């Protein structure tokens, strides 16, 4: 009788190891995924990270508080302004400084613009991961407009360092409000094109629906946050839970989907772009007058203690944990990066799926490698 045991007598079954990365087009950087595969099916994934580990947490121990800001840009470079904000909020929390409403409004608008820009880049790279190369150019074309706004006001496009402890580097440019409104008008027209091109596409839906499922319990346990977590019904929006900056002044919905698959994560991000535009529209006309930076001491020394600040970055919950001993350098700074936790759930999501699914799942998790490696 032929059974599972004796059918392969004499044939030694070996694991077929496929090394994806560090140089691979769809790992979005230098991430290495060691996959054991069987035919087309991925049996196990082991992420190897650290190819661009720069020791940022060690570097912070030698720097003063204002100097650390420019390192936070370099974690998740696609949500640089949000990381800046998180760090500055943490320092302000320690110093017990309440910044003016103007700063709060500008910070929030900048954060939401960053979120849109980040999701645009995610959309185009996700399209490219699935094989639709045209998406990449449409996404980048529109992202360019946001980067121009950043460049005009902040002086830089990607790694911006616009926030400082106690305020902002510079006041907004006189053109800022006009340009943001123009962009929102333009993007409200372009976003349906994204849907036409990719969201509604039957190939894309077939490839994403039911792929890479993660349950709510697993998502919480793995700490999968941000749009990836909200695609699994995990209500983890820090903007709602612990409103910081100007989020308490605006009405917006937390986008939640409960399917838990790649398509849910996709749709959460698409809806979040619309939600971000709503937030900006509520704030952009009402920026109050006030100083763009609070008066700070020349040398910032945090009182002894431990401070934690959570913010909602584009990929999930970003946390800054500062331990101070009362000196001008922090004793220890820990950055809780969303991508690192999201990556840990990759094996659960992509196990027993096809190679092409692994790429789609990776695209829907939207990992940024410098944020994983720090």
């Amino acid at each position: 009788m032929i059974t599972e045991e004796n059918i392969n007598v004499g044939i030694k079954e070996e694991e077929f190891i496929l090394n994806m990365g560090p140089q691979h087009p769809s790992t979005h950087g230098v991430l290495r995924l060691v996959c054991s595969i069987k035919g087309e099916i991925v049996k196990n994934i082991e992420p190897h990270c650290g190819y661009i580990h720069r020791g940022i947490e060690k570097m912070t121990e030698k720097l003063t508080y204002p100097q650390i800001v420019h390192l936070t840009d370099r974690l998740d470079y696609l949500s640089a302004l949000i990381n800046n904000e998180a760090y500055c909020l943490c320092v302000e929390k320690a110093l017990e400084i309440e910044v003016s409403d103007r700063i709060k409004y500008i910070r929030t608008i900048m954060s939401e613009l960053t979120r849109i820009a980040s999701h645009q880049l995610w959309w185009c790279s996700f399209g490219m991961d699935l094989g639709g190369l045209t998406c990449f150019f449409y996404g980048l074309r529109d992202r360019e407009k946001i980067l121009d706004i950043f460049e005009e006001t902040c002086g830089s496009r990607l790694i911006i360092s616009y926030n400082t402890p106690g305020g902002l580097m510079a006041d907004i440019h006189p053109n800022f409000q006009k340009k943001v409104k123009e962009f929102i008008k333009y993007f409200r027209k372009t976003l349906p094109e994204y849907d036409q091109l990719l969201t509604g596409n039957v190939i894309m839906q077939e490839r994403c629906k039911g792929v890479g499922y993660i349950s709510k319990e697993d998502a919480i346990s793995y700490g999968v946050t941000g749009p990836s977590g909200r695609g699994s019904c995990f209500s983890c929006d820090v903007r709602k839970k612990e409103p910081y900056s100007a989020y308490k002044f605006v009405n917006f919905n937390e986008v939640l989907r409960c399917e838990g698959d790649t398509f849910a994560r996709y749709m959460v991000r698409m809806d979040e772009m619309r939600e971000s535009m709503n937030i900006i529209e509520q704030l952009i006309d009402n920026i109050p007058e006030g100083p763009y930076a609070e008066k700070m001491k020349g040398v910032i020394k945090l009182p002894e203690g431990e401070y934690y600040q959570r913010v909602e970055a584009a990929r999930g919950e970003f946390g800054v944990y500062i331990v101070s001993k009362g000196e001008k350098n922090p004793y220890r700074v820990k950055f809780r990066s969303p991508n690192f936790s999201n990556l840990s759930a990759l094996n659960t999501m992509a196990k027993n799926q096809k190679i092409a699914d692994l790429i789609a799942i990776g695209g829907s998790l939207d990992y940024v490698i410098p944020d994983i490696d720090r």
Partner: protein
Amino acid sequence: MEFSIYDFTSFTKSLDKLLNENMSSFWATSIEMLLIGVGILAFYALVGLFLVYAERKVCAFIQNRVGPNRVGPYGIIQTIADLFKLLMKELIPIKNADKLLFNIAPFIVIIASFLAIAAIPFAKGLHAIDFNIGIFYVIAVSSMGVIGVLLAGWSSNNKYSLIGAMRSGAQIVSYELSVGLSLITMVIFAGSMQFSVIVEAQRDGWFLFRGHIPAIIAFVVYLIACTAETNRGPFDLAEAESELTAGYHVEYSGIKFAFFFLAEYMNMFIVASIAATVFLGGWMPLHVGGFSGFNHVMDFIPPFFWYIGKTFFIIFIMMLFKWTFPRLRIDQLLTLEWKYLLPINLVNVVLMALIVLNGWHF
């Protein structure tokens, strides 16, 4: 020797006569073969270069870009510059690769596309050979290319290329069915497999318009299936640059890579020209019954341009496919073939047979 761009029959006949009068038939045939060979080779290179340029420009315009515009006016010399680059690049020998198969594979791929081009009628009287089983020959020969792909994937000793080759094998074996069946639908309609007969039969109207719904269905199915067969567009699983980096030709460099590259474009040209010949009347001008003035103007355009125009129209559609759609997954690819295209095709063949039997066509 008379020469007309509307009818090459007398030209080729007189050339044949001239050669046979002056030398023995063996030498005459040899020289004819040589001439045809050189002619096709030149045409092949020209079309290949143009198609690469065209694809770059088409995808650039779709993607809101300008495309190549530095080398020569509007970048038309870009592909020639690329050709020189590929010629001069180092051919990297692969350790532990199967040397013989590794070197042979690109040639198999390119020879398959060479063979197929021989049977295609470019204009009236302008074809290398007019088989009475023309369509059958082209289908048979063009599917030879997959052997080259499989060999390339296997012999490179690379896991990515192996997966790519396996995918390609599964894909071409199944999509060959759809290509064959949709062409058979039209063969039933035309009553012949000979290309010249098929083209002549479309003098009063192209098959796409005359053949009712089955012809349109067959055309759409053929378009999908031939896109899959050329490993292009949403069906480029064998290369899948975001999954398998470059699939079966990941280890090739220099001119060997150029062979794969060129063969992909030539296969696209071949399937497009078959579609143009079988569905859109080949080199026949567009005729609308009753409008003799209009028909006369259409006749004025040389047949060769009709043929090229139709072929490039279909190639453009295939390019639009590629630059619009995301890639399918391997199981969806097979689902599409076995659950959708094949049953539709079978029903379609029966429909077409009914139409032909009852004489319901125009």
